[in-house]
């Protein structure tokens, strides 16, 4: 369905607004048009779906050298902290996700972790998930 277009007033803007700026300015109008297209009451979109909190930990695979971790480990001994025999640096990604149930939330997060947040060629990931 074609969204209702706001009146073209771009001629008013010519000279003090570039096309890109005008497009950016235009976005709220388009969103407003979409809102007008939805029923105001009993809107199925307003049914609350559970929100989940997740943390994805991404680490280099054990077989892959972590030079940043090694550099940090040598700084630890310069600080005078002895006995650090292993130090590996990873990433922590915190997310909030709306999904109908935990199984679906897990499915989406596993896809995300495996295909975007981590590169399985060199990295492992673990997922922690709980309902908010």
């Amino acid at each position: 369905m074609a969204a209702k277009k706001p009146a073209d007033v771009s001629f008013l803007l010519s000279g003090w607004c570039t096309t890109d700026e005008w497009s950016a300015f235009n976005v709220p109008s388009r969103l407003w048009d979409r809102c007008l297209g939805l029923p105001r009451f009993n809107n199925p979109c307003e049914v609350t779906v559970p929100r989940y909190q997740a943390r994805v930990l991404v680490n280099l695979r054990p077989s892959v050298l972590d030079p940043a971790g090694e550099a940090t480990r040598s700084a630890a001994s310069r600080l005078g902290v002895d006995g650090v025999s292993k130090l590996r640096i990873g990433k922590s990604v915190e997310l909030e996700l709306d999904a109908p149930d935990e199984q679906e939330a897990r499915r989406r997060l596993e896809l995300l972790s495996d295909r975007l947040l981590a590169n399985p060629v060199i990295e492992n990931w673990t997922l922690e998930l709980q309902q908010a």
Partner: protein
Amino acid sequence: MSIGVVVFPGSNCDRDVRWASEGCLGQPTRYLWHEERDLSGLDAVVLPGGFSYGDYLRCGAIARFAPVLESLVEFAGRGGRVLGICNGFQVLTELGLLPGALTRNRNLHFICEDAQLQIASARTPWMKGHQAGDQLTLPIAHGEGRYQCTDDTLRQLEDQDAIAFRYVNNPNGSVADIAGITNAAGNVLGLMPHPERACDPTTGGVDGRTLIQALLG
């Protein structure tokens, strides 16, 4: 016959590639903005060096989802020539057109210097006029150029004769001194060194000309 050079937000070698291909070698070249999908009329596509999308998350991880790359996967499947240089090589591995991954240099330094390379395989059209064992000097400029892959992948690369270049003096800790690889078919080449910076005799050597010429060769 023409060449497309993809421009991502954060690419910074796109103009160098065009200068090499068009300015130095007279090959028609146009830019491809990352949101384009139309590769019609192109015989080869170059993914240039730089820091696509700020290299957020991992080098090449976000660029992989650019609309132009959906068309590129089909283009490569039809046998079109694809050259990924530096960040472009990282994008090709994230995209899955080439195996393995590139990560932090062993010594953590950003290395910017000339590198001596040995042609490990001359079976693909990229190496026209060269033989395996020939040496080239090309500049490298990267912080995350350490090629990593599993033992199985390495064996597969060797079995397919898909290792294109090896470093003579491994600068970054890459597995098996790997500087560049091709796919099995040979039409997709990814390498960390910069052939486009070695095409103009006033700014460097001309050892890179073979690869840039091979785009339409």
